Structures are given as C-alpha cells and as structure tokens.
C-alpha cells in the first residue's frame, strides 16, 4: 500500500513540478567574473522556451549549468527536482559543433550514438536501439541518407543528424544552442515544426538564439538574457522595445501588425522579418 501511495505522489509531482527550476544562479568559469548573475526562472513541462540574448550574454553558460557541467557558485539548478547533473534524460545540441567532420562515421552511426548513454557499459546496441535510430532519422528526413558519411552532408543535414541523435536518446528535455544559425530557411522551419510537435507530446525544449526576428513568434515562453534575466514570460509580454534594448544593447525598432512582430535593427538599418 505504502509504495502505491508513493507512486501516486510521484506521478502527481511529475505533472506539477517544473522541469527546470533555477534559483539565484550565479556561475562562471574559474577565476573570472561570473558570467551569469542571480538567474531565476522555472520551466513547465511541455513548454517551448526561447533563450534570447546577444553573443556573450551567457546562453551557452546557462545550458552548461543546466547540464550540470558547470557547478553553481551560488544558488541552485534543479532539473526534474534534482540538482543538475549530466544524464541521458537531457539531449544537448551544442552551438559550435566542436566535432571533426572527417571522422569516419555515417549518418546512422551518429543517430545510434543517441542510444549509447541509455545502454550500460560494455553493452552493444541491439535491434530495438537500431530501430529507434532509424525512427529518429525518419523524423528528420534523413533515413535515405543513413549510409552516407557525415563529411558528405550539407549544413542543414548536419544539424538534422544531431537532432536525430537527440531524438534517439528519448530525452525529456532538449537543450538546443543556436540550432538555426547558419542553416537554410527550410531547415529552420523544419526544426521548429519538430520542436512544436515534441512539446505537444509533453517534452520540454529550450532553444538559445541571438536571432530574435524569425523564431521569436514560435516560443511559449521567452527568457531575455544578458548576464542576468532581463525578462521572462510569453513573447507578447517580453517583446517590448525597452526590454529588447536592455537585452541587446542596440536600438531595435519593433513593428507590429496582428500577432506578427518585425524587428528592425536601428544602427545598420538591417531589417529582418519573417
């Protein structure tokens, strides 16, 4: 009876507890100024959250803290109610892939790597793992490219391979660092379609980007970040000229019509819209 009650309580907690709770987080790299100061926010299950800020605003640092790769100097970072630590329930797609594209691995090999953290030491991936990797490649439209070397892929396809690996990992939480910078428009669109579908299924995704114009509309929540939290809330609330100016430290003009926002950068007159 006791264990039944515990199971019910756990299930109840799982649905109400935020997936991510960051409380007063101050952190950085050793012997330096903190990169992030007193960061506080919480993310509900199933949310698609945009982390927006200029380059150097601490987006990647925040992700490293969420992954438990960077310990807090102050405050705490809770993922699923536990202090953050590297684990297979979080899929991470870093910004600049530091990997060597000449490595002799195929598209399928990379997707299958998503299963590795789920297997124990010494254990080989089995039939079920290979099927999951194929399913993941299907999701990103690369299943007919599975035997190609990663060196032979285009930029957009490379991004899709890492998405496939993340999917094969069957995580609860996706952390994507600049997934749409430097890829073509169809891939950008595709990435967000996929993320929206995942979030409807109860997965949670954080997407860091410095490009606010094209993707901003698609988030449930937006975290404006520049070494500290400037604002956190639904896009229509945080997209004000004052808040964006404080975040990006440059003059931005917002033009609204309907539920669309066009961002115009004042200094170079560079207009970007979607």
């Amino acid at each position: 009876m006791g264990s039944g009650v515990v199971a019910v309580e756990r299930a109840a907690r799982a649905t109400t507890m935020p997936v991510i709770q960051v409380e007063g987080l101050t952190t950085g790299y050793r012997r330096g100024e903190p990169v992030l100061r007193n960061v506080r926010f919480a993310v509900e299950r199933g949310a698609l959250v945009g982390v927006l800020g200029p380059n150097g605003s601490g987006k990647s640092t925040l992700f490293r803290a969420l992954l438990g790769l960077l310990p807090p100097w102050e405050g705490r970072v809770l993922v699923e109610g536990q202090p953050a630590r590297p684990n297979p329930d979080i899929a991470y797609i870093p910004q600049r892939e530091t990997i060597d594209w000449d490595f002799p691995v195929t598209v399928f090999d990379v997707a299958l790597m998503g299963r590795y953290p789920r297997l124990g030491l010494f254990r080989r991936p089995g039939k079920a793992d290979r099927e999951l990797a194929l399913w993941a490649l299907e999701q990103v439209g690369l299943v007919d490219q599975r035997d190609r070397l990663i060196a032979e892929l285009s930029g957009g396809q490379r991004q899709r391979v890492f998405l496939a690996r993340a999917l094969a990992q069957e995580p609860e939480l996706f952390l994507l660092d600049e997934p749409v910078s430097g890829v073509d428009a169809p891939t950008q669109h595709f990435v967000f379609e996929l993320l929206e579908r995942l979030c409807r299924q109860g997965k949670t995704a954080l997407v860091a980007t410095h490009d606010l114009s094209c993707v901003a509309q698609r988030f449930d929540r937006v975290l404006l970040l520049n070494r500290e939290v400037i604002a956190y809330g639904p896009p229509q609330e945080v997209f004000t000229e004052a808040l964006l100016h404080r975040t990006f430290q440059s003059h931005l003009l917002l033009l609204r019509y309907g539920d669309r926002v066009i961002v115009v950068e004042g200094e170079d007159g560079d207009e970007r819209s979607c």
Partner: protein
Amino acid sequence: MNGAVELLIEPLRYGFLLRALVAAVLVGAICAMVGSYVVLKGLAFIGDALAHVAFTGIVVAFLAGFSFYIGALAAAIAAGLGIGWVTRRVGLSTDTAIGIVFSGVFALGVVLMAIGIRTYTVDLFSYVFGDILAVRARDLWAIALAGLLVVGTIVALYKELLFAHFDPVVAEAAGLPVGALQLLLLLLLSVTVVVSVQAVGVVLVLAMLVTPAATAALVARRLPAMMILAVLFGALAALVGFYLSYYASVPSGGAIVLVATVLFVLVAALVRGRGAWRRLMAAYR
C-alpha cells in the same frame, strides 16, 4: 615456387628469429589499432613524446637495476596521465609544454645512457632504433599481454570510446565519463608505446602508430573497417619488413617503417590522393 617458400621458412628455423617475427607482427598490429585513434584525434605528437619518455624510463630502470618494462611503463603512464591532466585542466596550447618537457626528459635519458655505457658496456642504443632480434621469450609474453589488453579494451569499450572522442561535449552531457575515457586512451597509448620501443625503437614508434592507420583511413569509410585495415597494414608491414631486414641485413625498425611508408604511398596513389595528405597531416594537429 619451392624456392620462395624456402626463403620464407628459412629464417624461422631459428627460435629467436621466429620469436622476432611474431613480436614484429604483434607490435605492428597493436600500434595500428591504437593508431586509428591517434590519427583521428591528432595524438601523434603525444605518442612521440611518450616514446621518448619511455626511453628515459628504460635507461633509469637499467641503471637502477630493475626491469625495463617497469621503468618504461611507469615513465610513460606518468607522462600520459600528465598530458591528459594538463590538457583538461590548463586548457592552453600544450604542444610547446610537451615539446619542452619531453625533449628535456629524453635528453636526460641520452646523458644517463652515455654514463651507463661508460660504466656497464651495454647497448642501450638499440632502444633508439629498435632491435627486433633482441626480443626474448618474456618480451614476447609482455607484447602479447599488452596486445590483449589494448585490443580487448578498444573492442569492449568501442561505443564509449567512439562517442567520447567523436563528440566529447555531448557525450559528457549525456552522462558518459569522458575524462576517464580520454585518459584510458592515453593509458593504452602508453602501454603500446612501451612494448613497441624494443621492436621498432623510440624514433620509429611514431611511424607505426600513424602510418598504417593513415593508410587505412584512405580507404575505410567507417571506424571498425579502418581499425581492421590498419591492423592488417601494420602486420603486413612488420612481416615484409622483417624479411627485408633479414635478407638485406638492415635494421628491423627501419625496414618495417619503410615498408609501411611504401604501403601508404601505394594506397594513396591508388585512391588518387583523396585527402591523403590531409589525413596524414591531421595526425599531427
């Protein structure tokens, strides 16, 4: 026909020559296996440094009167772990540091060797260029044991080593012990270098680590195929080099490496250079 077979069998009638051949082939294969990662991860300079440190370990072990394997292993493992630690912790360009420290350690070995020769009239110089004929039965055991350890570990931890070296950032985020796996590779590299020093010598260990694996990288598409081909190329170079050394009366280390190099050039020519030089140079990043 019989003449050719006779030529191949003739040297093997002597126990020490048969032993030498087996040792050479094993060393060629083990070096090539680890060498696949050396080529992919650009660890050639570290492998070279380890060989030089191992040499000093051998000299010190000799002068102090204990087994050269203990001396060389202790020195190489300490150096391997030291490099791993420096690369992870300090994070600055380690090439210069490695260059200064390890050429210094090697110089110490050379000076100590000179003192050793004066005192003991022993030829430690064979370790610089390698003398396969000096392999004793227990050396062969050591090589076989090291081979079992190295190949066994790389096969058993195939997926972990692959993920940790292909994409360390993501592997670490997913909970893999990436730091430990990177140190493990340096450890395997240290063991390989130590057992290879006697066969091919300090100067040429590097070639056995890099050349067969780089040759395999020219034709293999995936890592398992690359490792198998590298092992075949390494073993073939050792085999052919051994006979070359026997019949032409040239040093074994030089002959083996020369054959490995010719193999690389032949394969590179066959695949019309498809990134051949880029591959080879990448090993020295």
